[in-house]
Each structure stands twice: as structure tokens, then as C-alpha cells.
């Protein structure tokens, strides 16, 4: 997997789900199945969907944040699809071949697809889209980042495209299945970037008709749609006439709007609303854990005090995460103890308890590390310096996540850490992170492969990476042995070999105490009983309303 900057770690769960993980995701999915199986799907009607964040730009190629892909799933199609078992299936591309050297993909395309602006879908469109994603001016930090190996596309004929890569990249088809790499109308793409942001054009089941900024995005059915993904429950045009995609940032307000019947579906169901939502007979839930690197605080090993492994372990053992999950997350979130979320391929449960809360051991470790002094307030000191941990906190961090860190602050204080949660607006915090000016960085990484370990811990990602960003190895961890393991894992396709290598990688990461991991990221929808057949598109586990219908 190519390096990729985090989607802004807004802790309202953002979703990154990949192919291999889907299998596990479905089993881990706690799904309150929709009642009304007896009903037959009806056509027509409007569904009101409320989400927490507004996309900055509706074109998912630009930047590439989770809200964009949620919306993109409704109006864009992808070249290929992915099913729940992680198999790649044809979608806009009917079939494809891969050259022996793994560097050229020959795609054969459907002939009957038209974008909603009337432009026909051709090999030219494929080239225009891929070129657009990697164009620096697009400022793509996700789609462009995923296909860093992209060299160019040859249009063989109108419906055959040859895509060339600079180096072999086995995950290419999987990333193509993601909504971030959805195919847009080349005519629309030719417009200036900021214009395309306002009303991009795709070939999907819905088309964007209006965007009232900070209020809602209105989509209407694409009546010509005949090319739904193979993962869908039906064929032909979407069942809904219209989607009102509302922006309601306040979690409590969003949930209240659902309860009041103002909206039909909300995503990012806040933990505090989960119990009332379960008790409410008019609602059902659609929950799924997501694979990748769980929600965490990554320790900066490049400067004191966390350049000392003993202090890192002491900090991990000072943080009472379970207490926080019991209080502010109301037991709805499970603990993630190791570097990978349980739904990630090649996940090993061996690390779940590698750094459990153990204040006594923490104190002993601090003693060993020479932090033996005490200030009047009980903060450990060494050589006169107090044991201070700086944690920049973005203004957009959710209340629950913020509380979790306040509780870590309080428990770590008991063992002698002076944890400073430093509020800042998102931009300021990002700047600090770019300059390694933190001891703990709060974030997460959702993706569908254990290759995430390479992105977040290998020395290749110490430097600035991606179009926009800075280093992605937030720990500043650098270990040649680890680098070798994760690089080897990328080259082989043998599952057993990969499992062994990723176990090794997890071991090294865990033994170095690089992260305070808290809970896995998850998709959490709450839906009215009037809404049926809302799916999570397996490629990224984002909402798909193509099959959905409403009973009024």
C-alpha cells in the first residue's frame, strides 16, 4: 500500500475499510437486522441522511477526507468492486489482465455507461481520472497517494485502457475499488478544480443537484442507471427519488433529529446515544468495526522523555483505558490493545494485553529510567526537569475522545506524568505535528491491510510524504529489522509467509511500546425503522443508499 496521510483524525469515526478485512468485518458486525423482511421494496420517496462533517470538496480526488467518500459512494462508480470476502469483481471494467511483471493492467470497459452530464464512459475517461488524481494541482492526499506507482494510461481503443505502473503493486485493484478513486466525467474534470468541487459529475445511481453549504447536499436518482455494482441487492435505477444529505455536526442534535423523525439515518452515532438508540423501538443500528491501526496516541520517540523505552512502557501502563471505555463510551466500544485492530488481516491476539494498566510497574520503570525526583505536585523529575508530556489536541476532537485523554491525563498523573492537553485549532495542531512538536499524537489509521504497520512505523515514512503532508511515521520509529520485515511482506503473496512476517512486525511494534491504543475504529449508523436496505459498500464500508427504500 502506498503511503497515505491520515484522514483528518476527527474522531467521529471515519471509515477506511479494505478488501481483506471485510470478511472479518462482517463477522464482527453487530447488526440489528431490519425487521420488515416481509415488505417488498418500494420506489420513490426521499431519504434524509445526516452526517457529522461537511465535505470540503465534493470531488473525492481532491484532498480525500472521509466525508467525501461517503458522498462519492452515492454518485460515483468505480472501475472494480470488492465483495465481502475481499474478491475483486467487475464494475465499470468488465474484465482485466495483469502483465507478468505486474506493471501493466489492461482494462476492458462497459460500453453502455454514460455520465449524468451525457458524456460517454470510455478509456479516455479512465486516463483522465487517473491523471487527475496524481496531478499535484488536484492536491489529492488519498487517491493520488494510493497510486503513487502510477506511470500513465494508454488508450488502446474506446473501451480498452492500459494502465502502467512504475513498480509492481499488488494492492492496485483493491484501492481502485475504493470510492476515493471513483470515476468522474472527464468533461466535468476539465473544469477548474474549485468549480468541479461544487458539482462534480459521475455515472452513479444518484447525481448531485444542489449544495447548500453547511446545510445539505441534495441528490436525485439517475434514471438511466443500469450498471450497479455486483455487491448490490438489486439492479436498475436506485429506488429512492432523492437524498437530502444533511450536515449536523453536533452529535446530540444529530441523534435528536433522528429521534424526532427529522432525519432517517445518521452516521457517527455518538457513544452516549447508543444505549437510548438500542432501547428505541423505532430505530435500528448498523455497526461495524473497521480494520487497521486502532484509535491511539502515538508516542514521539525522537525526543525526551519518550526516547527512552522504559518511559514509554511506563506511560502505557499508567493509562487506564478500560476505565474510560466504561464511562464515556458506555461499554459500547471494545478495547484494542495491540497495534492492529482485531478485524485486520494477519491480526494476532497475542498483543492485546502487552501493556495493560499497571501503575506499580510504571513507577518501577520510571525509577529505573532515572525519573526519581518528585515535584511538590508529585510529578516525577530527572535532573531537575519535570516529566512533562505534551499532547496537542485539535478543537475538532470529539467529547468522548477528549474525555478519554483527560482520563489518561488523570491516571498518568498518579504515576508522576505531567500530561498537558494543549488545545489548538486543527491547523495549528497539524503544523505542530509536522514539526514533530508533540510527545503524543492522537490519531488512527483505517485501511484494509496489515501493511498499515509499514506506513506508521517504517523508516521510509519518516520524511514528508504525500502531496500535502508531513511524516506519517508519527512515532519517529526507525528500526532496520522492522523495515525489512514489512518490505518483505509486501513482495510476497503467500499468506502463511505474510502471516509470519506480520506477526514479527506486530511483535517488534508492541515490544517498543510505540502507541497507547484504545479502541478500534468503527462504522456506526442509526436508522429509522422506516428505512430499509441500507448497505455498507464492502470496499470501504461506507454507506450505500443505492438499494435503500423507505416506508412512510
Amino acid at each position, binding site marked *: 500500500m502506498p503511503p497515505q496521510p491520515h484522514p483528518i483524525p476527527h474522531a467521529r469515526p471515519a471509515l477506511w475499510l479494505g478488501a481483506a478485512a471485510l470478511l472479518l468485518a462482517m463477522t464482527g458486525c453487530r447488526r440489528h437486522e431490519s425487521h420488515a423482511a416481509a415488505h417488498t421494496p418500494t420506489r420513490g420517496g426521499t431519504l434524509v441522511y445526516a452526517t457529522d462533517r461537511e465535505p470540503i470538496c465534493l470531488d473525492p480526488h481532491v484532498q480525500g477526507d472521509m466525508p467525501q467518500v461517503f458522498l462519492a459512494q452515492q454518485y460515483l462508480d468505480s472501475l472494480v468492486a470488492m465483495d465481502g470476502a475481499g474478491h475483486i469483481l467487475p464494475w465499470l471494467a468488465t474484465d482485466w489482465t495483469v502483465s507478468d511483471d505486474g506493471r501493466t493492467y489492461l482494462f476492458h470497459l462497459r460500453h453502455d455507461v454514460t455520465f449524468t452530464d451525457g458524456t460517454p464512459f470510455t478509456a479516455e475517461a479512465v486516463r483522465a481520472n487517473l491523471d487527475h488524481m496524481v496531478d499535484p494541482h488536484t492536491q489529492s492526499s488519498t487517491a493520488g497517494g494510493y497510486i503513487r506507482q502510477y506511470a500513465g494510461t494508454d488508450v488502446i481503443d474506446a473501451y480498452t485502457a492500459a494502465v502502467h505502473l512504475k513498480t509492481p503493486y499488488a494492492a492496485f485493484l483493491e484501492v481502485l475499488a475504493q470510492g476515493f478513486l471513483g470515476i468522474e466525467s472527464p468533461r466535468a474534470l476539465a473544469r477548474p478544480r474549485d468549480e468541479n468541487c461544487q458539482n462534480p459529475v459521475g455515472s452513479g445511481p444518484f447525481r448531485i443537484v444542489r449544495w447548500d453549504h453547511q446545510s445539505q447536499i441534495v441528490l436525485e436518482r439517475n434514471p438511466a442507471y443500469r450498471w450497479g455494482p455486483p455487491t448490490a441487492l438489486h439492479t436498475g435505477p436506485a429506488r429512492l427519488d432523492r437524498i437530502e444529505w444533511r450536515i449536523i455536526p*453536533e*452529535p*446530540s442534535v444529530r*441523534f*435528536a433529529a433522528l429521534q424526532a423523525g427529522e432525519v432517517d439515518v445518521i452516521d457517527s452515532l*455518538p457513544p*452516549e*446515544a447508543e444505549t*437510548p438508540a438500542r432501547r428505541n423501538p423505532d430505530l435500528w443500528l448498523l455497526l461495524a468495526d473497521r480494520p487497521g491501526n486502532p484509535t491511539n496516541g502515538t508516542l514521539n520517540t525522537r525526543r525526551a522523555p519518550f526516547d527512552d523505552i522504559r518511559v514509554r512502557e511506563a506511560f502505557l501502563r499508567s493509562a*487506564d483505558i478500560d*476505565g*474510560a471505555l*466504561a*464511562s*464515556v463510551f458506555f461499554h459500547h466500544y471494545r478495547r484494542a490493545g495491540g497495534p492492529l485492530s482485531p478485524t485486520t488481516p494477519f491480526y494476532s491476539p497475542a498483543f492485546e494485553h502487552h501493556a495493560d494498566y499497571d501503575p506499580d510497574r510504571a513507577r518501577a520503570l520510571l525509577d529505573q529510567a532515572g525519573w526519581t525526583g518528585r515535584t511538590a505536585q508529585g510529578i516525577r523529575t530527572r535532573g531537575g526537569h519535570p516529566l512533562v508530556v505534551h499532547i496537542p*489536541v485539535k*478543537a475538532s476532537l*470529539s*467529547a*468522548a475522545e*477528549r*474525555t478519554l*485523554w*483527560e*482520563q489518561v*491525563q*488523570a*491516571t498518568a*498523573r498518579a504515576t508522576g506524568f505531567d500530561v*498537558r*492537553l*494543549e*488545545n*489548538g*485549532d486543527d491547523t*495549528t495542531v497539524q503544523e505542530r505535528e509536522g514539526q514533530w512538536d508533540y510527545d503524543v499524537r492522537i490519531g488512527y489509521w483505517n485501511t484494509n491491510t496489515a501493511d498499515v504497520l509499514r506506513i506508521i512505523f517504517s523508516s521510509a515514512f519518516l520524511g514528508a510524504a504525500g502531496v500535502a503532508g508531513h511524516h506519517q511515521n508519527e512515532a519517529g520509529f526507525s528500526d532496520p529489522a522492522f523495515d525489512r520485515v514489512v518490505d518483505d511482506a509486501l513482495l510476497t503473496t503467500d499468506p502463511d509467509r505474510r502471516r509470519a512476517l506480520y506477526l514479527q512486525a506486530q511483535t517488534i511494534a508492541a515490544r517498543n511500546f510505540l502507541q497507547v491504543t484504545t479502541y478500534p475504529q468503527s462504522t456506526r449508523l442509526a436508522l429509522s425503522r422506516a428505512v430499509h436496505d441500507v448497505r455498507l459498500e464492502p470496499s470501504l464500508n461506507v454507506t450505500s443508499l443505492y438499494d435503500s427504500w423507505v416506508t412512510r
Partner: protein
Amino acid sequence: MTTLSLAPSMTRQPSRRLRPALGHLGPAAAFLFLALLAVAALAPHLLTHADPLAIAPRDAFHAPSAAHPFGTDQSGRDILARVIHGARQSLALGGGAITLSLGIATILALVGGLGGRIAEQGVRWLIDILFAFPVLVLALLCTATLGSGIVPLIVAIGVGSAAGYTRMVFGQVLSVRDAGYVEAARALGHGPLRIVARHILPNAFRPLVVTATMGVGQTVVWSAALSFLGLGAPPPAAEWGTMLSMGRDFIAEAWWMTFFPGLAIVLTMLSTTIAGRALQRAIEGRGP
């Protein structure tokens, strides 16, 4: 520009005829509450034994009870203790901002009132200009420029609310400057310095006690508003606006998290208003 000179000030300008809204009980209660606030700010431990920072996740979201009169928050911290300990931060912000604001107001008013015609017109314009920037808008601009934190916060609110106070003090300086007793002092042959020192300054700034008292309440509200927007004190400090802001996410489950910090803000505001009016009556009872 006439509107401004006619408009009453945004900041509860001391007024002669405000009726004693809450009778005689009001001022007594107000001063009592302010005294409690002062104790809370200086020696919070006298009022509560609970630690405002001690978390107890398993005691989270407890409704008000005998053990926790104001309930507990999402980390099981005692809200009463946090409200009491929050007084210091809130009052320091409010006090700092009002000091800055009145400082600006005083300097501008003196320059405008005593610096000749050009200075007078200049200050009039400046007041008009300052009024065009609502406190919170200016505060946000300050934050965008200076970053967030306590000092920018104080600067933002101090500068933002300066317009109202400047106009008030300026008006006072002008009216004193043109007052009969100043003329009488000139007619007695007293020099300008003596007149400024003995008449203009004391009379122009006498109402400032009232203004400052009422202003503290207003700036506490403003700083709470900015804290509410996430631009205030860092955790775990108990600051009313921050507590309120955190509480709003849990309003459906734990109304007390939002209600009590807000109540503290409202009572501070009300007490300073009522106490200010009482002070004003006391001052005016002495003078004409």
C-alpha cells in the same frame, strides 16, 4: 455616526433610574454571592473538599445527589468542586479582560477629552470603528492571528469590549470637562493640572467602580463563550465555559453537566449587575 452617540452603551451603562429590581434582598444576595466567588477563587478548599481533577470513571454521569450535589461529569469528577475551582480561572479571565478594556478606555477617553479638538474627533471616530467589530468577531480574528490561549483570549475580549467602555468613560470625561465646577475652578484661577487632578480624574472615574463591577460579569460571559467555542483554558482545568461546552454533548443524558456551570455564569453576571447598581446608588446618593 450620530446613532452611536445616541445609542446607549452595549455595556450596561450605569443609569440613574434603574429601579431596584430585586428589592433590598437582591443586593444582599448579590454581594454574598460575589463574596463566595472571591473565596472560591482564592481558597476553593474552604468550600469543597472534593478534588476537581480526581477522576473516577466508574462514577461517571451520576445525577445530583447528596454525595455530589451538582452530579458528576463524564469522568466521574464532582461538578460542584469543578464549578468552585473554576471560579478562579473564570474570574481571572474576566478580571484581566475588564482591566485591559478599562485601561484602553481610560487612555482613549483622557486623550480624547483633554487632548484638544482633533484628538476628540479622532477618539469619536475610533469608538465608531471599534463598535463595528462585535466582541466575538474581533475575538475570533484575534485568535486567528495570535493563536489560542489565555493571553490572546484576554486581549481579544479586552480589545473587543473596549468600544463600549471607551464611549462611556469618554462621555464621562467630556461631561466633567464641561461641568460647572470645572469652570468654577478655572474662574478661581486654578491651573489646568490641578483641575485635571482634583476634579476631572476623580469625577470622571468615579462611575468606573460601577462599570468595572458590571463589566466583570459581562467579560466572564464572553470568555465563557470563547471557551465554549474551544478557544479557552486547556484541560483538565475547570473552566465554566469549557465545562459547559463538554456538557453539551451529553445534554440528553446528563443535563447537570451543562446546567450548573451555566448557572454559575448567570449568577456571576446577575450578581455583578445587581451589585453594580447598588454601588451606583450608593455613589449617587452621595453626589447630586
